[in-house]
């Protein structure tokens, strides 16, 4: 199974609005997800300038799907959803 790509925006706005709190994923990955995800810090993905505004930040992309006002909780839920979906497709 390919690793799920978690891109945490580290543009100025997202960073100030709380991206570092999600970066904690790099240091304390839930055990069952450790070998299934790849977390990267990326430069501004321009979600803030495309109408949404920095107020909706921090933005995180999980396999290309954008999460607004991202929190650790939201990101982990999204990852688990994707894993569950993939497993279903396998069956």
């Amino acid at each position, binding site marked *: 199974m390919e690793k799920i790509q978690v891109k945490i925006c*580290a*543009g*100025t*706005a997202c*960073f*100030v*609005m*709380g991206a*570092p*709190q999600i*970066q*904690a994923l*790099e*240091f304390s990955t839930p055990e069952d997800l450790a070998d299934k995800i790849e977390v990267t*810090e990326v*430069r*501004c993905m321009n979600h803030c300038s495309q109408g949404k505004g*920095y107020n909706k930040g921090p933005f995180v992309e999980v396999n290309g799907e954008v999460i607004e006002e991202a*929190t*650790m909780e939201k990101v982990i839920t999204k990852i688990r959803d994707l894993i569950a979906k993939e497993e279903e497709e396998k069956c």
Partner: protein
Amino acid sequence: MLIPKNYANQMRSRILVKVVESFYKDRFESADEIPIEMRPKDYDSSRCCIYKDRAILKYRMMAAMGFTPQEETNEAKQLKDYGKEALKRQNHAKSCLAVIDIACSACVKSQYMVTDACRGCFARPCVMNCPKQAISIINGRSHINPDLCVSCGKCLEVCPYHAVVKLPVPCEEACPVGAIRKDEHGVEHINEETCISCGKCLQSCPFGAIVERSQLVDVLNLIHNTDKKVVAMLAPAVVGQFPFEINQVVGALKKIGFDDVVEVAAGADVTSKNEAAEFIERMKEGKSFMTTSCCPAYYRAAEVHIPELKPFVSNTKTPMYYAAEMLKKEQPDCVSVFVGPCLAKRSEAEYDPNVDYVLTFEEIGAMFVGAGVEIGDCEQAQFAKVSSAQGRNYPLSGGVAGAVGNLVEGEVEFRPERIDGLSKENIKLLKKYATKGSENNMIEVMCCEGGCIAGPGCIALAKKAARQVETYVAQGVNQKDMK
């Protein structure tokens, strides 16, 4: 303490951004719309209702403008008017931490409680070991009489079923000096006389009820509404606070209107030099040990709460002091703004005529966002002065002692010890050292666990920031090899 990953501290950053934005938009003319915009009618409230949420947001905004909730004399006074008052003031208000009384949930008084896991056993060690006979058996279970309990915790230690729990009050537990206490209604209050401004209460309150007076508006006002030259003094912990090259951060500061940016790590080099000389002198005089002095929260704690330790605390000034002194010598007419991770620096600055304002990394972060500046797009700019590797290492636990050790090598014996985090336990330990002496002769004390990179004014994850500081240290030159 609460992990740095929670909604309360995220809200603090958001409020700061909103205040900056409101300043740029219309000089706070429409500031009163912000609490409503953040908690609109159909929003899920964080507390009992959106109306209480909005009321608390107003107090948060007041704090960001430099007013504590206690300064409210007229409840009808609008944010717009607070904003205007902030823009009129010539000197910033005295820094202080304060409790938003309506946000404080008045946690139950810290106590021990017997849970349902109690089996009412035959041995009853809790009853037998309680020194105040506060425990009796009611309906076949142990029960603690709160009027007799002195919170010694013996019952928790001896219960074979781990049925006794301690209900903490997070802010009181976090405060190393007992400066935050409940009033008769259970609401917390901070004693300004004994507070060391470390900010641990602010970081630990799960309701985000603690705020501090910001100087953000004062600095924005200076930059945009006066022709004064405003210079930012960047604390060494800045490396790693923004996920960009440090020189780009310098560029971004210039873009938002700072005329010049100096590196406080250059002041750290002076501190290391003076502290090393002082250490050698004290050891030759036969003193048993010396502690560092650059953490302002610890310095104040020693002064107010551990007076017996005072003779052992170094008299050397902090990196901020030396950096500001150098700056004011070169540019006597400038306004100096220290930018760092620390809340206690605000109190230190009050006694330092060369430091005019103090901001946190979080506050300058909010300035970047509110002004629409993307650091990644900024030109790289250089610091006026270059610091040594040792000066750059100050914000990590062990960094200050390391810098002094580097300079005293070969002169006197150097046995360093780190006090990493000023907890209640570590204060006891320091008291013991003061009266009974210490095995080690150089005690480095940092109030924040992990060092300044874990300060309450930081944005980045401490672990990640530490790595970046280490890289920056590696690029520096040994202080011994500098002229």
